[in-house]
């Protein structure tokens, strides 16, 4: 059973750079949500994609953008990286209006 796959698992970037994180949803799921989890905190909602469009967005600046492809996979892009962007980025897939979220193991981003 293919769960949610995220890549890469770890990443180190320099302030001011740009980064792209990738997510493949669970088979049968077509909705992808992204969360940022700072150290010692609970995950914070970034945005959700469905039918290749951003469906909802949390309280994150425009430096955070995303994309969903026809095969339902998704990318999270962060521009002009700040030290405060260092976190675990989690991807979760679901059905639209579903309550069953499947999470990936995340990408650990470190900004130096």
């Amino acid at each position: 059973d293919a769960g949610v796959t995220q890549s890469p698992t770890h990443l180190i970037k320099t302030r001011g750079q740009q980064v792209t994180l990738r997510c493949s949803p669970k088979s049968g799921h077509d909705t992808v949500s992204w969360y940022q989890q700072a150290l010692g905190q609970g995950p914070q909602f970034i945005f959700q994609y469905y039918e290749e469009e951003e469906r909802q967005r949390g309280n994150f600046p425009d430096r955070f953008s995303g994309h969903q492809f026809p095969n339902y996979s998704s990318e999270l892009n962060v521009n002009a990286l700040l030290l405060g962007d260092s976190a675990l980025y989690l991807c979760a897939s679901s059905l639209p209006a579903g309550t069953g979220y499947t999470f990936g193991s995340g990408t650990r981003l470190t900004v130096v």
Partner: protein
Amino acid sequence: AQTVTQSQPEMSVQEAETVTLSCTYDTSESDYYLFWYKQPPSRQMILVIRQEAYKQQNATENRFSVNFQKAAKSFSLKISDSQLGDAAMYFCASLLGGYGGSQGNLIFGKGTKLSVKP
């Protein structure tokens, strides 16, 4: 706005004993779902148990059960016969309901780190 509060940053339990993790939430909606997720060092969020707000009966999944007090907006998790593999971060989360399913996004608490002593 929805909020979820976990007031216990860390908890410890002896193997085979019972532990209760606390969670309170706030919402003005009547249709919502509540969850407990487990996050081991592997980082993946794993669903432990789910409760629909309209159901009065408390959810149970094997050794895991909840005490859902809707009026008090309290949603605690009880782990019975604790095992070493239960050691992890536990997050309480809420999700608005609607349209026969859900709307909005998961709102998480800050988590409780559970240690299990052999």
